C-alpha cells in the first residue's frame, strides 16, 4: 500500500504543476473553428436585404476566393469594423456576408449608416450556417478559397492591422 500513497502524492504534484502551468498561460476566450481547412457545409440562405442577392454554398465555390463576414445590425463591433471592410473591398476583395438573427429593415438601416461592402448577404435567422461553420459570435470573418474550402478564420472586429493579414490570406487562397 506504500507505493499507492506515493502515486497519489505524485498525482497531486502533477495536478499542481498543471495548475501552475495554466496560470502562466495567457487567457484566450476565443474558440477557434474546427472547420478551418474543410469545405463549406451546403446551405442556401435567402436574401437579407432587397438590393443584394442571398448566399448559398455554391456561390462560394465559383473559382474566386472570397471573404465571408458574419455580422448583425445589433452588433456594435460590427459597426466598428465597417471602415476596414470598406478598405478591404477597395483593395479588391470580394466580400459576402451572413446576417445573424436580424430583421431586413434593421440590416438595411445598418448598411445605409455604415456602408455596404457586400456583394451578397444571406439571412441566417437561427444561426444555422453560423454554427455549421464553427463561428461562435459576431463579427467573424472567414477566408474561403475558390473551391469553397475555409482557409482562415478571423475572430472579432477587423482592426487596422488585420487588413493586410486578411488580404495576404486572401491572395494565398487564390494561389
Amino acid at each position, binding site marked *: 500500500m*506504500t507505493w499507492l*500513497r*506515493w502515486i*497519489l*502524492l505524485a498525482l*497531486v*504534484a502533477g*495536478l*499542481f504543476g*498543471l*495548475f*501552475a*502551468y*495554466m*496560470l502562466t*498561460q495567457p*487567457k484566450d*476566450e476565443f*474558440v*477557434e473553428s474546427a472547420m478551418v481547412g474543410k469545405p463549406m457545409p451546403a446551405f442556401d440562405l435567402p436574401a437579407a436585404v432587397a438590393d443584394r442577392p442571398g448566399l448559398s454554398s455554391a456561390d462560394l465555390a465559383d473559382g474566386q476566393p472570397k471573404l465571408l463576414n458574419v455580422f448583425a445590425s445589433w452588433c456594435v463591433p460590427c459597426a466598428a469594423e465597417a471602415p476596414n471592410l470598406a478598405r478591404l473591398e477597395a483593395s479588391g476583395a470580394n466580400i459576402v456576408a451572413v446576417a445573424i438573427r436580424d*430583421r431586413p429593415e434593421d440590416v438595411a438601416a445598418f448598411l445605409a449608416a455604415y456602408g455596404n461592402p457586400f456583394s451578397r448577404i444571406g439571412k441566417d435567422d437561427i444561426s444555422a450556417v453560423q454554427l455549421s461553420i464553427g463561428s461562435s459570435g459576431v463579427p467573424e470573418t472567414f477566408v474561403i478559397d475558390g473551391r469553397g474550402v475555409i482557409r482562415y478564420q478571423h475572430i472579432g472586429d477587423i482592426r487596422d492591422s488585420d487588413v493586410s493579414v486578411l488580404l495576404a490570406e486572401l491572395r494565398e487562397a487564390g494561389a
Partner: protein
Amino acid sequence: MIAEFGLAALWMAAALAGLQMLAGFASLRGEDEEALGTLVGRSRLSVLRAVKAALSRGDGDDILAALVRPAAVLQALLCALSFAALLLLFIRTDLSVALVAQNSHSAKPFIFKLAGTWGNHEGSMLLWVTVMALAGGLIGLLERRLPERTMLATLAAQAFVGLGFYAFLLISSNPFERLPEPAAEGMGLNPLLQDMGLAFHPPTLYFGYVGLSIAFSFAVGALLTRQVTPDFAKVMRPWVLGAWIFLTLGITAGSYWAYYELGWGGWWFWDPVENASLMPWLAATALLHSASVLASRDALRAWTVMLGVVAFSMSMIGTFLVRSGILTSVHAFAVDPERGTFILALLALYIGGALLLFAVRAGTISEGERFSVMSREGALVVNNVALSAILGIVLLGTLYPLLTEAFGVRVSVGPPYFNPVGAIFFLPMLAVLCVGPLLRWRRDSFERIRKPVVAVAVVALAVLAGVYFAAGIALLPLLGMTMAAAVAVASVMPLRGRSLRRLPLPVWGMVIAHFGMAVGLFGMAADSAFSREKLVAAQVGETVEDGPWRVTLVAVEPVAGPNWTALEATLHASYQGGAPHVVHPQARSFWTPPQETSEAALLTRWNGQLYTVIGGEAEGGRWQLRLWWKPFVTWIWYGGILIGFGGLLALIGRLAGDLRRRSAQAQIALRKGPAA
C-alpha cells in the same frame, strides 16, 4: 479611522496566529518534531527549536503550551473586530475606501450594502479568516477531550492554515486600502448579486469550507501526535457535521438561485463553480460516515484521517479554480493571476504538506478493529468508496478541460458525462443505503434483515414496473424514481419496533436526511422526465398551452425599480381550467453597472412549478415568452432542506450528549472534591 483600525486589528490577529503556530508546534517533542520537519521544512524547524530554546528555561515548554489557547481566543476577537470594521465601512458607504467604492453604491438598499461586504474577493477572504479564527478560538476555549499535546498540535495547524490566508489578505488583497481621493459615487454591486438568496449563499458555503478546515487541523494534529482514536472522531464530528449542514444548505440555495435568477430553467449545470461546491460536500459526506465508524467502532482510522485532509483540499481546490479564473464559468469572480498564484502556493503548502505527512505517518497508524463485510461498517465502507468514486468523477470532469487545454484542445464536459458516469456509482450506493442502517455493527446476517429488505425490493420493483408502463421515460429518470421510492421506504425502516420518543436525536437525523435524499432524487427524476417547455412569440391577448396550464399574455408594460427599469408581462395562468393566477415575469435592465437580467416569475403548486420568462420583443408586436411546466421540481430543494435538517438534528443530539457528559463529569469532580 475605521479602516486603519480594521487593518491594525487584522495585522495583530495575524501576529497572534504566528505566535499560536510557533508555540503550538514548539511544544511538540521528539519524534513528533521529525514529522513536523517534513511538513514545514527543515529550516523552519530550526527556527522552532531556537524559539523553544530561548523560552525553555525551566518550565519553558509549559509556558509555550500555555500561550496557545489564549492566543487562539485573542486572535478570534481581533479578527472579528476587523471584520466588524469592514461591515461598518460598507454600512456607511465610506467611499474613501477602494473596496467600498468599487463594490457599493449610496443608493443601494441597506441589506445589499451589508451583503456587499462579502460580495467581493477581499471581503469574502476576510469573512473566511474571521470564521476560521472564531472556530479556532472556540476550540481553544472549550475543547478539552483530546490529549493536550494533540490539541496544541491541532491549534497550531489551524494557525498555520490561517496564516496563509492572513498573508493573502495583507499582502495581495488588502480590504482596507484607501483611495488617494474619495470617490464621488460607488460603482455598484453586480445586479445579479442583488438578491436575498445570493447575499447569503456565499457565506453559507464559507462556513462549510471553514468547518472542513477545522476537520483538517484535527486530522493534522492527530497525525502529528499519532492519536487517531475514537475520541478524535468524536471531537471532529460536530465540526464536520456543522460544515456539512452549511454546505448542504449552501448548495441547495445556490441551485435554487441559479434556477430562478438565471432564467434558464435548469437547477444544476455541472458548471465548474457548482462542482467546486459539490466536491467538498461529497468528501464531507464520506467523512461524516467514516467518522461515525471511527467514533463507534475504532475502525477506518487512516481512511478517516485521509478524508479529513481530502475534504479541506477539495474546498481549497474549489476556491482556487473559482478565484484564479483558470476555468471559464458563468460565476467569474474578478479574476487575477496574482491571486491565483497565491492560492496555488497555499494549496501546495497545505495539501502537499498534509498528504506528505500522511504518506509518512499512515504506515504507523493501524487500521483498527476488524469487521465483516455484512455489517454496518461494511455498508459504510461501500458508501465511502462510492462517494469517493463520484468525487473522483466530478474532479476529473471539472479538470479535464484544463488538461486538454494544456495540449491546445478545447473541450467542455457536461451532463452527458457527469449524469451517466456518476449514476454508475450513485445508484448502487443508494441500494446499499437502503440496507446499511438496518445492519448491526461488526457482524450481521442477511436472515435478520430479510423482511424489511424484501419489502423495500417489492416497492422498488412495483414503482419500476408502474412508471415504465405508465410513462415510458428514459432510463436514468426511471432508475432515479425507482431508487427514490426504495430509499424513501428504507429510510424509515430503522424506526421499526423502536420507541419513537426514546429514539436518540442522531438516529432521527439519519432517518430524515436519508428520506430527504429520496425526496430530492424524486424531484430530479420527475423534472428531467416530465418537464414541458414552450417557447412562443405571443401577441397580447393570446393564450398558450403548456402541459396542464393555459397561460394568457394579458399585458406588457414598462416598470421602474430603485436602480433598474424593466419590461413586465402580466400573465394569467390557470391549472387544468381552474381560476387564473396572475404572474409578472420581468426583463430587467440595470444601469450601475449596465446589465440585463431576466426575472422569472414562478407559480408554485405542491406538485411542481410553472416557470415563466419574458424575453425581448419579436416581430409584429409579439413578445418572446418562455414557459416551463416542471412537475415536482421543488422537491429537489425540499429534499436538500430535509437533508440539512437531518444533519441539524444529529448535531443537536451530539452537542447535547457532550453537554450531558460535561455536567456529569463536573458533578463527579465536585463529589470527589470534598473527600480529597
